[in-house]
């Protein structure tokens, strides 16, 4: 019976080839426009660490000044903490794993091959960083825990940096100059397969400027490495001295802090600790604003930083409106097409076909139209994404610094492909429901009377 319905539906499409083709094209255009923009939005807000959403959190505290609220994030709390605060939270030792970090950069030079150098984006982190953010190792491993607190000049290279500087060879034990100071290579991280989405890159966006080297947090007091990330200074008139002393004791916010909790109780303990710490700091004249802090998982951090609200969010909304117009257009055309076929259906009804089987046949016809539109719409989406990739392509930087553009957002994933096809079917079924219902309810006698 189903194959019979399918044959009838297909025959009906073939009986009006031009009208059917135009409906398919119109729906495909709507699907293509929406899915192109949606793909970019979807990929740029992907969170590969979503499976840790219930245990991995970034801490924000409202350490801003009293005269105005912080305007850089949706929850009006800076993403960064001062060294003083971050170190206090780190010393609590409550979380199962935790990391303090900041973005830096500079020139890396292989000491035994001075012609091999590279300008890099780097990150200064504590040991747990690599576990927290699923960074795996090609050679070596993370530094010892003591490097988080003591000055141990070590470096971990990203696979691509190791490739450029050492032709991909095992570089463990080699020494490197970074900003004029010597570091020993203790590890090389493996480039993760697929998209390079780094949730830790709160500073610039998760798809931009991937880290090319890592340094242990314990070297911060040497003052050899400065921040390349935000350095937000709330009003504070205290004299903190100069240079590294001012950086370590002052109120400027430049470090991000992430923690992983093994259970909700541990998280609750940490929240109590943070609350009490802020209260204690208030007695010392810090934290002039109300006691506020937030532990947000990686997905929430995207929302807090407005990554999901860029121009492609807007274009996706317009694209959805466009698809709505195409679907309404399809409803009107299907209504016309089915009305033309009403006499034929009248004869089928008179010969014993039920209303349901007429309805099913019309709906199948809509599904066929939607399926075709989905395939063409998908081809259109892929073409449009390739054109956009070429348009947004920036010239590669000669100095080795990771590119600031993000071509990965133009590569759709399986989710996008499936959604395109499903959306096409759903849109066509929505378009076909009313015309099919209206046509199948037409009394057969009306058409049987006609010559």
């Amino acid at each position, binding site marked *: 019976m189903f194959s019979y319905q399918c044959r009838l539906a297909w025959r009906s499409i073939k009986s009006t080839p031009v009208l059917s083709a*135009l409906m398919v094209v*119109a729906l495909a255009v709507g699907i293509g426009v929406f899915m192109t923009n949606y793909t970019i939005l979807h990929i740029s807000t992907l969170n590969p660490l979503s499976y840790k959403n219930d245990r991995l959190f970034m801490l924000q505290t409202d350490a801003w000044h009293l005269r105005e609220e912080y305007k850089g994030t949706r929850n009006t709390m800076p993403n960064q903490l001062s060294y003083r605060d971050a170190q206090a939270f780190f010393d609590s030792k409550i979380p199962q794993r935790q990391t303090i970090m900041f973005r830096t950069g500079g*020139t890396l030079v292989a000491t035994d091959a001075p012609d091999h*150098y590279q300008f890099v984006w780097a990150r200064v982190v504590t040991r747990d960083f690599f576990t927290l953010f699923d960074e795996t190792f090609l050679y070596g491993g993370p530094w010892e825990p003591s490097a988080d607190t003591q000055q141990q000049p070590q470096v971990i290279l990203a696979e691509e940096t190791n490739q450029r500087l050492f032709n991909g060879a095992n570089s463990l034990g080699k020494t490197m100059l970074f900003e004029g100071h010597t570091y020993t290579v203790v590890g090389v991280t493996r480039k993760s397969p697929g998209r390079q989405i780094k949730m830790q890159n709160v500073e610039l966006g998760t798809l931009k400027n991937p880290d090319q080297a890592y340094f242990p947090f314990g070297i911060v007091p040497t003052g050899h490495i400065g921040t390349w990330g935000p350095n937000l200074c709330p009003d504070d008139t205290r004299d903190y001295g100069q240079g590294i002393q001012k950086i370590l004791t002052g109120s400027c916010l430049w470090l991000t802090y992430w923690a992983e909790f093994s259970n909700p109780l541990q998280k609750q303990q940490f929240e109590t600790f943070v609350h009490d710490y802020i209260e204690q700091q208030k007695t010392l004249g810090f934290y002039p604003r109300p006691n506020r802090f937030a532990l947000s998982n990686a997905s929430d951090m995207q929302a807090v930083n407005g990554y999901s609200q860029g121009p492609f969010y807007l274009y996706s909304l317009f694209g959805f409106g466009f698809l709505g117009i*195409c679907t309404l257009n399809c409803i009107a055309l299907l209504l016309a097409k089915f009305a033309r076929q009403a006499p034929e259906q009248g004869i089928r009804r008179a010969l014993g076909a039920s209303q349901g089987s007429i309805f099913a046949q019309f709906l199948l016809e809509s599904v066929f139209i939607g399926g075709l539109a989905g395939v063409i719409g998908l081809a259109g989406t892929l073409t449009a994404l390739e054109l956009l990739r070429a348009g947004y392509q920036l010239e590669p930087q000669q100095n080795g610094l990771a590119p600031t553009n993000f071509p990965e957002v133009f590569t759709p994933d399986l989710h996008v492909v499936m959604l395109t096809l499903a959306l096409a079917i759903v849109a066509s079924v929505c378009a076909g429901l009313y015309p099919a219902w209206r046509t199948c309810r037409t009394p057969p006698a009306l058409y049987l009377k006609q010559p």
Partner: protein
Amino acid sequence: MLPIGPVFRALIRRKFSLGLLVVQISLSLAIYVNLSWILVNLNEIFKAHSNLPETQLVSISLRPTTPTQINYTEATAHIQAIAQLPGVQNAAIVRWIPLRRWAGPGTELRSQPGIDTPAIPIVDCSVSPGWRQTLGLKLITGRDFTAEDMATTSDQFSKTLIITQTLAQALFGKDETALGKTVFFGDNPLEIIGITEDWPGFVLPYPDRVEKTAFLPLYTDVDSEHRYLIRAVTAEQRASVVLAVKNLLNDHFHRKIMLDIALIDVLAREMKSVEYTRNQQLIITMVLLSFVVMFAICAQTIFWTNQRRKHFAIRRALGATQADIWQLILLETGIACSLGILLGTPLAIVINQYLAQANAPWEPASPLLLGGIILAVLASGLISALIPALRASQTPPGLASRSV
């Protein structure tokens, strides 16, 4: 006299189809208005020029690959040597690269001391004497930096600064001159000794926006990166100048230096290419939307007219001319489009107001833009109805007698 009565009755008879068409037209009007508004604003960015001698300018960043610090005396010697090279017009030390999309640190200036006074967010850029001539910025009033103004070690800070016109007005208003006034950079008092014309800037170099920039006569000797901005006499000479400067610096540092070359016209082009792609994307979307909406109007009008062929034939048999049938069809379509416009205009305005707020300082869509798009939608609706009207007007009157 227009056949308003018959037209309305005909429209009411197919109210569902009419409703669909009206919603399609209203939605497309709202999308048209707002995409056009974005397009107009992006186009301004794309068309605008930075007013810098982009093709003559090159920035060279120096990063020694050995533990070496370049002090001010050494950097000045480089600048002097570079200025002597053939084809070089000017050279200076600058902290930031012009027109590079670089989210550099934002700082604040105050016209009064104390943290409780209002602060103006600015971009500050350390420079050396000669920076203005190199950059090609005009000095509106005041004087340039001299060697005596320079603070050249990490324990010194500038005593003077030069600011852009927009920053001067933001600090002291349009009626008061900023020249000679003291402003506060943190706790440091600085005297404004010059005001330059406006320019796109370092941090967010959108050509349609001006940056509130403060130029400070400052050199930080502990920095691991230093940057020289060089202006060639002509665009053609720039390539040879770059080569000569690279050789000079490589020789000086015995090749233990990393040089990062940034051609300013390439940066400007990159900046605009992104806007250009967005621009093209919006244009293609609007063309496709036009195609879909015109197709919708055309196809639905054909369907309506086909359903009423006998009706047109009777009218023709009773004496209606082909022009009368044309008038009938175009009037029906015109009314459907007008209803769509009536519904779509408030929707477009509401969406536009929201977007304008979110994209400040973009102004909301002008009445001219709105009116133009309304007329375009009405015109394209009527054009879409031409083929159905032609077909309907050619209905033979004999069809009426054959079918009765």
